[in-house]
């Protein structure tokens, strides 16, 4: 087990290195001279001398591999560069850390919403396959996966905030501010999870140990909650990593719609203002969190499921 964890941990270093290279090269994919573009963005008229001076100031006169190593060195010391636009001069990392809690809260509460919806519905439709309830649940999941989160968010906002006035339209702070955003994301996620819970529950209920449990005279309730559910949740847990990536993507839209100061909104804002260092930082940070989460999920999966053996 420990060996597996160590192996899995060692595997992420090349990935993280690749992630950093890709994020770094983004800055240099820009058509044209990055130094000149950055210079223009500061509202200055680019004379060749001034651009050259600016280039040296940014460390851009070195060859690319050296620039990358310098940047990587900075990165390992927590220096992601500085914002060159709206928050001019502020360190990128502190801008990100300022906003990450909002995104994390959104992700966790959306996950809760999703589980609250998908567990009961998935179980219900699995124990009554091909019933009316099952069809309704399946139809619901079809719509749920097709509904654009940016549309659902606006509909919820229109109904609950504008018409009923129960919840604030947007902003950040108390519990009431997170209800609609997490409902928006949670519903979309629940559509995927419900299907998974249903199919894996169906699979488990066909197993022989369930028949044994029934033969033993256990109540259906005990069978479902004590014997079936635990095993049915394993496949659900394996896709948790993918779903987390899905949450991070969805957070971009939800944060923009509800004006939540999270990392997704920061990313979109910096794309609009062409604040490349912040974009670079956000992308790198999100990928980093995504890779680490997947690592933790993989390791805990091996830890909790004794049948899984990795050699």
């Amino acid at each position, binding site marked *: 087990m420990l060996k597996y964890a160590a192996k899995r941990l060692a595997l992420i270093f090349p990935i993280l290195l690749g992630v950093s290279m890709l994020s770094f090269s983004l800055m240099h994919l820009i058509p044209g001279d990055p130094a000149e573009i950055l210079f223009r963005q500061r509202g200055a008229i680019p004379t060749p001398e001034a651009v050259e001076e600016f280039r040296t100031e940014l460390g851009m006169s070195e060859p690319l591999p050296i620039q990358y190593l310098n940047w990587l060195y900075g990165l390992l010391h927590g220096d992601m560069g500085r914002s060159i636009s709206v928050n001019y001069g502020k360190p990128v990392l502190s801008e990100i850390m300022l906003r990450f809690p909002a995104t994390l809260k959104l992700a966790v509460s959306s996950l809760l919403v999703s589980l609250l919806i998908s567990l009961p519905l998935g179980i219900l439709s699995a124990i009554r396959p091909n019933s009316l309830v099952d069809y309704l649940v399946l139809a619901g999941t079809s719509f749920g996966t097709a509904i*654009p989160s940016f549309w659902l968010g*606006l509909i919820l906002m229109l109904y609950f905030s504008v018409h009923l006035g129960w919840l604030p339209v947007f902003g950040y702070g108390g519990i009431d501010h997170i209800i609609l955003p997490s409902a928006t994301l949670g519903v979309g996620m629940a559509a995927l999870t419900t299907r998974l819970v249903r199919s894996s529950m169906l699979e488990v209920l066909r197993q022989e140990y369930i028949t044994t449990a029934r033969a033993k005279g256990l109540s259906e309730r005990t069978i479902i909650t004590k014997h079936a559910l635990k095993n049915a949740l394993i496949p659900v847990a394996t896709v948790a990593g993918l779903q987390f990536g899905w949450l991070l993507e969805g957070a*971009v839209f939800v944060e923009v719609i509800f004006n939540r100061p999270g990392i997704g909104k920061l990313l979109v804002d910096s794309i609009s203002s062409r604040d490349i260092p912040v974009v670079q930082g956000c992308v790198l940070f999100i990928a980093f969190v995504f890779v680490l989460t997947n690592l933790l999920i993989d390791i805990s999966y091996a830890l909790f499921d004794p049948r899984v053996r990795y050699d």
Partner: protein
Amino acid sequence: MIEDAFQELGANRSALLGTIILATFLFVALFAPYIAPHDPTDQSLKNRLSPMSSEYPLGTDHLGRCILSRLIYGARISLPIGVIIAGTAFVIGVIIGTISGYFGGIIDQILMRLVDLLLAFPGLILALAIIASFGPGLSNAIMALVATGWTSYARMVRGSVLSVKEKEFVDGVRALGAGDFYIVMHHIIPNVVSPVIPMAMMGMGYAILAIAGLSFLGLGVQPPAPEWGTMLNDGRIYMKSAPQLMMLPGMAIMLTVLSFNLVGDALRDAFDPKKKDKIASAMDVKR
């Protein structure tokens, strides 16, 4: 028995529904100039935000443009974009997955590490990063979604190629003197594409959703083009006074994505070997 029949019927029904919706959107997209009552970009400032009328069946937007015509022309933008993105990603994925699986060795290593790297980012986030460096706009958005979209096809195809290339018939064809290219084109690819076709179908739905999302953020299709995501974004300021401005484009996106998903689901079931017997017997009955 009865339950099975029910299940089949349910599956067929949703496939039928998906096909009908999709066919409707295709029809609308093809014949947009004949169906739409107005030019989708024609502004009529004295008719701004007007309600439904015989002249404007679904009312007008904030610039006095006919909403119905814009929705109709929207299908002309979204459907081809979805097909282009998913189609290109599919072709790239099949080619790379086949090369990787068939030749193996160092080529396989390099290609699969590239896939691992791209999958280390949530797809849309990487697409956003690419758009950030190349600039907003439709062609860059398409490129970004293709660049991040081909990986899952490649992985899947590679896996199938690995198992197919060990089959005896491949040895047989090789013994007959067939070259690598011939074997790949005539014997490997036909045997590995069927499971990825449903994926491509759902990929089209996802691509339409993603382009609408990027356009909603102002990073995809640019105004005044009547694209659904752009319309949704334009309409959200007027959500209180004219909710139809945001409701209708969202509905169009959802129905299109839904139809691709339903058809994709049905195709996946049809290609699923576990269900093959059932379908084969159903076909016998028809004969």
